[in-house]
Every structure is written in structure tokens, then in C-alpha cells.
């Protein structure tokens, strides 16, 4: 005689279904988190690179003076005139090949690209330039990139919602699964309760079983998500675009992604354990 078999028959199919569902939700949560982190990285890159960048347009006659003034201004990291060849290349779609011989410098203002060490210094620099050069136009890069920045912010909210939905669903599903597991075994629980079993004794098999199921689901979902994210991240990092390359995940981002399935599993286990205690209190 073996005195210690399980008090309740196991339902492997139900456990597998729950693990698969949790795996899918964990997968979605991790991918959404990675997407959100990547978008946040791009937004940071945009802010860093474009927020303190501007283009100054001045008449060619005063270009040299403006350039000297800029280079002498504190807060200006770099001031570089856009060379005529670059201007011709930029204008080629409008002027065509026939425009190659046009006197570009006489037709359009001179342009100077300026990088600041801090975007906050821009108003003071703008005042100084306007005081020294009568005709001037200053294009701040962050203004024409504002729609892009707005889009990135919206994408971060979308990612947050995609993370929150499975994060909210996982404990609900685990708790309800546990309630149903207990209800299905109500008769056996009543028998064992009547024999003098404590709630702790009765809860133990349910609690440890859900731990196994949840951890399996979290592991499968986590590994699946990482299997997709690692090559995608590697591809993103190799792209030439600063904006897209900014979406590449940093080590801190990978740490967040590694912790996420553990946190979601802990959430599910806590909800399931709480459901066990509540249900046993109701059943006897």
C-alpha cells in the first residue's frame, strides 16, 4: 500500500491549456514591452540628436560673419556650413540634372548646421544671432520632427496598453482557473475536510500545482518572445538610421524583459493562492 498518492486526481490537459494560455499572454507582454522600450529608445535618440540641432539660413554675404559668431558662442558644439555640392544634391529633385550648372550660391541663402550642447541654450543663441545679422532664418530640427516625436509618444502608450492588458488578464485567469479547479473537486474536498484536514493541507496540492503550471507558461512565453526579439534587435542595431538604431535594446532593457515573466508569474501565483484561500473558506 502506498500511503501518499495525490488527494485529488490531476488534470494534465487542463494544466497544459492554462500553461499555453499564460505562455501566450506572457509572450505578448514581453514583445509589447520590448516594442515600448525600443520606441522609448528611439524617442530618446530623437530628443538627444535633434532637439539641440538647428539650421541657420543667412545671405551668402554675411555667412562668414554668422559662422564666426556661432563658433564663438558658448553652448555651440559645432557650426558647419553646408557645402554647395550638398546643396546641389538636395535640390536635384526640384532642379533636375539641368540645374547642375546654376549658380546655387546666388539663388539660395547660405546654410549653416549647428549642434548645441543643450537645447535650452537655443533662445539665447537665437537672440544673439538676430542682434548681429539682420536677415536670418533659424530652423530648429525638433520643430519639423515634432510629428515624429508625437508618433513615438503615442506608440509608447500603445505598447503600455499592450503590456497592461495581459498583465491584468494573467492574475484573473490564474485565479479563475484555481476557483474552477477547486469547484471541480468540491466533493473530494468536502470528504477530506470532514476527515479533519486543515485548509493548509488541502491547499498545498493546488498551490504547488499552479506554481508548476504558471512557471511553465511563463518560461515558454518568455523563451518564445526572446527567440523572436534577439534576432530582430540584432537587425535593428545594424541599420544605418540613427532613429531606428536608437530602438535597439540596451542591457537595462534586456534586464527588464528577463524580469517581466518572473513578475507576471508571481502575479499569477499570488492571485491563484489567494483564490485557494478564499474558496476553501467558502467551501467549508
Amino acid at each position: 500500500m502506498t500511503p501518499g498518492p495525490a488527494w485529488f486526481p490531476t488534470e494534465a490537459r487542463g494544466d497544459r491549456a492554462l500553461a499555453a494560455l499564460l505562455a501566450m499572454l506572457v509572450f505578448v507582454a514581453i514583445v509589447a514591452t520590448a516594442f515600448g522600450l525600443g520606441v522609448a529608445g528611439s524617442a530618446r535618440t530623437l530628443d538627444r540628436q535633434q532637439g539641440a540641432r538647428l539650421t541657420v539660413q543667412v545671405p551668402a554675404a554675411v555667412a562668414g560673419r554668422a559662422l564666426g559668431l556661432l563658433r564663438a558662442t558658448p553652448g555651440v558644439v559645432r557650426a558647419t556650413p553646408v557645402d554647395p555640392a550638398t546643396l546641389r544634391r538636395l535640390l536635384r529633385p526640384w532642379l533636375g540634372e539641368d540645374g547642375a550648372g546654376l549658380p546655387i550660391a546666388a539663388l539660395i541663402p547660405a546654410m549653416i548646421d549647428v549642434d548645441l550642447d543643450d537645447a535650452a541654450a537655443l533662445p539665447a543663441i537665437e537672440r544673439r544671432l538676430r542682434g548681429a545679422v539682420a536677415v536670418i532664418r533659424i530652423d530648429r530640427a525638433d520643430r519639423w520632427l515634432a510629428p515624429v516625436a508625437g508618433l513615438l509618444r503615442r506608440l509608447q502608450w500603445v505598447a503600455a496598453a499592450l503590456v497592461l492588458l495581459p498583465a491584468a488578464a494573467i492574475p484573473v485567469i490564474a485565479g479563475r482557473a484555481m476557483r474552477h479547479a477547486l469547484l471541480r473537486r468540491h466533493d473530494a474536498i468536502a470528504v477530506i475536510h470532514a476527515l479533519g484536514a486543515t485548509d493548509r493541507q488541502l491547499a498545498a496540492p493546488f498551490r504547488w500545482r499552479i506554481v508548476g503550471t504558471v512557471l511553465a507558461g511563463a518560461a515558454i512565453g518568455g523563451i518564445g518572445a526572446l527567440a523572436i526579439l534577439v534576432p530582430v534587435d540584432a537587425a535593428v542595431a545594424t541599420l544605418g538610421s540613427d532613429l531606428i538604431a536608437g530602438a535597439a535594446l540596451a542591457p537595462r532593457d534586456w534586464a527588464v524583459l528577463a524580469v517581466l515573466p518572473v513578475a507576471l508569474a508571481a502575479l499569477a501565483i499570488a492571485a491563484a493562492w489567494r483564490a485557494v484561500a478564499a474558496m476553501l473558506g467558502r467551501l467549508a
Partner: protein
Amino acid sequence: MTTIVQFENVGLRHATGTEPAPGAQPGPMSVPVSGPVPVPVPVPAMVAPDDPDSDTAPEVLADITVSLHAGVFYLLTGPGGAGKTSFLDLLGLVRRPTRGTLHLFGEEVTALPRARLPALRRRIGMVHRDGRLLPHLSVAQNVALPLRVAGLPPDEIDRAVAGMLARIGMADQGHALPATLSAGARQQVAIARAFVARPALVVADEPAGMVDPAAADRLLVLLGTLGDDATTVVMATHDSRLFTRLPRARMLRLDRGRLHDPAARPPAAIPDPAAPVPA
């Protein structure tokens, strides 16, 4: 004679699903025991004492005042719906009184904290009409359940279970699953499970209600012989003729939730195991 149970003006309100109304048909819930043909019987819901339904429901037991003594075999009789199962539910701590006081083994249980109930329940063996064996466990594993719950070491459990199976004549059927047994054999196992932990009180709810007369006689003998001199047995039956076959048993008669003639016969010892059950 030691009093182990004391009811004083106990009332119990009806809770939905705990007991069928007089004349009601069995409910749809299937029995937890398995067998060749599953038999639908109403399974009592275990209801907490603060069940809100209890505030307005009618009383299924009213003004019960009686003492039960150690070592006495009680026959609890009454027509269907009289409150026998509810009375046994109180004894088995499945439910608790909604008024009055109930002392079990010296403890007033009406307001006893939940956490203290398991220790009391371990001193009580229960036999249900349908056995309530766990279908996925073998005969021996079912009998071992109270000992596992009590946390006994495995070798001690093995010894006690083997001894109990030998006493009920099922030593060679320890590995059988309940579904492979006859209804009578399943009830024997249920009775063995009720007695294996040597409880002070055994509560049996029509244990022979679903078996043939020969098996019923066998079950009656087991109930009278498996305990020791101090074991109290309370057996519910709607068959008051059993009273004539257990001459030393004491009758408790319930009718419409009230106990009648609680002193119809003075307390007596459990029937002599050597005495044959009258035909």
C-alpha cells in the same frame, strides 16, 4: 457515563442544498464515489455558520436538547425530511447550529474558530449513505486517508490500514479501486475509513441505505464491532425495525426537526460483536 456530545436548545436553519425537502427527488449532482452505475444523490453543501441564507431560512432542526454518551450505539430514526442528515451534519461539524449550544468533546463548537475545527473533526468518523470514497484512490488508500490527514508516519499507516482491511475481510482487495467493488463492499471500505483512526464518535448516515439486506446486516455488524468500548456510534436510519435487531442500542427519534422521546431507552453499550444480527 461520559458525555461526549451535548445539545442545548439547538436550532439549525435550512441552507439551500443541504438536505432535500420531504418527498423531494434527489438532486442532479453526481456522487463522488464511482461505481458501475453512478447514482445521483444530493450532496450536502458545506455551509459556513455565517451563511446569509441562514438568517431567513426555516429551521430544519429546532429545540434539540440531548446528551450523547461514550460507548453508546444510537439509532437516529425518523421519516424522510425529519432532519436526520442535518443532525448528523452537526455532529460531524459539517454545519454548525444557528442557535443554541453544542458541546463536542467538551468544546462549545457553535462559535469555535474555523482553525480549531480540524482537530475536532479528526475525532469523528463519518459514513455517508453513498460512501464518498475518492474514486482515484485504491481501497487501502481510501482507508488510509484519516491517518494521512492526521500526519502519521507511512509505516504506521500501512500497519493500521492492513489491520483494518483484515478486520473487514478485505485484506486482499487493498489495491482495488472503488469502481470495481460492489455497493456493499464500498460501504465496508467507507466504514473502515471511519473507524481506522480510532475516533471517539462515528456518525453514519443511512450507511446501508443503498445495499441489499444481506450486505446491510454485514455493515450493521461492522458498525457495532469496529470501534472500542468508548466509541460512540450514531447511525441514522429510516428503518425503525432495526431497533428491534439492536436491542441494546438507544433510539433517537426525529420528526419534523424535533427530537422525540430522547430517553426511550437508557444508554447501553455497543452491541455485542459476538451476537449475531437477528434475521
